[in-house]
């Protein structure tokens, strides 16, 4: 019993000690929806170059966005780094982001940032189709995602209906094609018995493992698989016609309004747009650099050659609830 008492007291002391250390004044706190494996090396470089200490909270983009919304203006975060524009948009809609300086915004083509300048795109992620090269030739794939509701694709196209990038794609489709057409497409995919997966990476894994023939994903997962296993029998297909399926979605960053170290935060966001960081995204995470001048990885088609659907990314977040409703209505949720 005594040992237990001592342990409990030790716990109380130890835990209290731990709690105080998280928000000392010269530390910049970042909420990162991008994983530690991908961005930690970059953040270490920034710390070394700038002398600013960074503490990072890694998590899922949407869940971190929900956390910031619950925290409101009490959020300990200075910067929110997100995988997708919709999570950034939800924070912008709640009025929790500060306005970014125009020099920062001007570094990136307008279409990859918030129109009102509350967050900026950092790296690009193209929506693509991953396919099993032993079973399918690129020539037989349709020109847009609309072709996949054809019965001949029944059961052959994997989708991740609960995933943030799929929902952003659905939101984009609503903006481009309207609610009714989008619902009809989702229902067509459901009627086709399209297998559903929790996220993009599991679809790519399933295609590589021969469990499904194709799937709607983001482009870089396959490149990561190929980096480890160059003979994996799968390839990326970019839709040749502009549609929601050919959307390039930026990962991005915004600075929290309530932040008490705005200069350090701004320095960090600028760093993410530096040639060094853009090179890193191109070569290490296989994403599209968004600042002109840095080339994408390997034989990826140039960013300008991907047909761009005409939408404003800031419109995605307000469309997200409807996208989720439609996915649910189609029976995919």
């Amino acid at each position: 019993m005594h040992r237990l008492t001592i342990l409990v007291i030790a716990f109380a002391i130890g835990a209290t000690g731990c709690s105080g250390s998280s928000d000392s004044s010269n530390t910049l706190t970042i909420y990162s929806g991008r994983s530690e494996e991908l961005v930690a090396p970059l953040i270490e470089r920034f710390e070394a170059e700038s002398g600013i200490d960074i503490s990072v909270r890694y998590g899922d983009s949407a869940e971190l966005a929900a956390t910031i919304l619950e925290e409101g203006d009490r959020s300990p975060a200075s910067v929110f780094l997100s995988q997708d524009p919709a999570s950034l948009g939800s924070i912008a809609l709640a009025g929790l982001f500060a306005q970014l300086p125009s020099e920062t915004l001007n570094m990136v083509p307008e279409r990859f940032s918030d129109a009102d300048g509350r967050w900026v795109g950092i790296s690009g992620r193209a929506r693509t189709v991953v396919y099993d090269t032993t079973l399918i030739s690129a020539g037989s794939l349709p020109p847009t995602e609309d072709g996949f509701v054809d019965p001949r694709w029944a059961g052959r196209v994997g989708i991740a209906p609960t995933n943030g990038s799929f929902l952003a794609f659905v939101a984009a489709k609503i903006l481009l094609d309207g609610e009714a057409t989008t619902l009809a497409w989702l229902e067509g995919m459901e009627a086709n018995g399209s297998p559903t997966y929790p996220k993009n990476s599991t679809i790519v894994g399933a295609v590589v493992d021969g469990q499904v023939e194709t799937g709607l994903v983001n482009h870089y997962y396959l490149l990561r698989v190929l980096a480890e296993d160059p003979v994996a029998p799968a390839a990326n297909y970019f839709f040749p016609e502009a549609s929601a399926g050919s959307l390039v979605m930026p990962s991005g960053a915004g600075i929290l309004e309530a932040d008490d170290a705005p200069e350090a935060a701004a320095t960090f966001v600028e760093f993410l747009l530096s040639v060094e960081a853009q090179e890193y995204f191109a070569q290490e995470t296989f994403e599209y650099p968004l600042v002109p001048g840095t080339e994408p990885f390997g034989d990826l088609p140039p960013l300008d050659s991907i047909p761009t659907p005409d939408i404003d990314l800031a419109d995605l977040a307000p469309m997200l609830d409807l996208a989720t409703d439609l996915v649910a209505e189609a029976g995919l949720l």
Partner: protein
Amino acid sequence: MTSPVAPAVRVRGVPSTGPGGTSAHRSPRRAPWWLWVAAAVVLIPIALPIGALVVRVAGASDETLSILFDARTFELLVRSALLTTLVTAAAIVVGVGAAWITVRTDLPGRSLWGVLVALPLVVPSYVIALSFLSASGPRGLFARITGTTLPVLDGLAGAWLALTISTFPYVFLIVAAALRRIDPALEDAARGLGAPPLRVFRTVTLPQLRPAIGAGALLVALYTLSDFGAVSLMRFDAFTRVIYAQYAGRLDRTPAAVLSVALIVIALAIIWGEERTRGSAAYFSHRPNRPALPRHLSSAGRAAAACALGLIVITGLVLPVAVLISWVAEGSALGEGVTINWAAVGGSLLGSSLAAIVAMVAAVPVAVLAVRYRSRVSGWLERSVFVAFSLPHITVAIAVVFFSVRYLGPFYQSLVVLVVVYASVFLAQATGSTKASMLQVDPAVEEASRGLGRGPWTTLKRITIPLIRPGLLAGGALVFLTTMKELPATLLLRPTGFDTLAVDIWSAANELLYTEAAASALVLLVISAVPMYFLVLRQKDVPV
């Protein structure tokens, strides 16, 4: 447990009731005030997320509430209920069967079998699911080794198998302990009167095991209800999958709260159902003074028993470990360095040990009130502990974020809050085994202490707690094991920079870095196997 003061074997046959029921054995004394204070303190972190959900739902618009009456919501409810029923049924069959073989037969090496069979509990359900998926299919591990393709194991069948394998040890551990303390005299008498073995099992053994089976099945059912990792990987549309999807796909967090309240209702229905089945069962208060003679197995029987146990161990332990090792091996073959993230190891050990300690302390007032001072209030206290166990952790975590950032100041994103959340969502596992121990303590012993002039506090400290220590420790071990696997609450509530193995596995697997994910998963299994080893081996003393 050998209690020096326990009187000789005595079959009390007290009708055991669920929480909130009446007892023929009510203590005449009233609970001391500080016991209620302690219980109230335990109840705060449990009631808080539940309360926050109810408040949010109460403020929801009619349109949001209408999600409850969607045909799709109903369909998901049915699917979750189906999965929960199938998993629970299978876990009972497998758990009781394995317990009977390892406790009551002369199968060679049954102590070792006992440890091996319980070990799938330390494997996170998402790792088991992932290993099934990567072993099956045309390019799976099985096909690559044997050349024969196993059909892809997913959907209902996959979720059922993965969850059965990862939860049946709850039934196994609790029933094995109960089998050890059942007095063999009754079975001997039945056999002596000419009843065939199967009938003895059905009419004498099984009724005595009912409370243990019920306790194990309740944990299995509620865990299945709250699981997200396995169902999402197996692509099975369960209720939790939709709740998580609401957080990813909506700016408004109210629909997720509405669905979570629906989940609480299902959990309460399950808890109520378990209480009803316990109503007529009986238990025995004392460890028999001689163990049951092991049943002799013929050589065919031995082979069958070893095959059955071997099949469990292969699916629940060998296969996941083989898949993990194959990933590590593939990575090293490609020249990737396999490193162990020591910070994550430290974080997992610290968080899980503290959670276990806090849960053990919190379990005492709940168990004492539930057994000695049974009332309507103590019944609801126990039920809320079980409800907390059934909630998806994302829901709990979001509610705690909201509360702690506003009212707990510097404790927001601190280890204190994280550990308290761990302890409260997993408390049901500690109160279960502590209560079972408590039921074995003869109240006469405590009465004697009181009669000799000791106060209730001294009696609790000197008499009750030492006597229920085995149950407390077993409960603590279970909490430790499940905390090691916990992910959603850890992600949202951990101190910034605090790393655990589960977070490491998630983060690496997300980026398809399977070598790294597998290395962390193997470390998690090795660390978790240690308390599991003691839990099972010491079980001869531990009346779980």
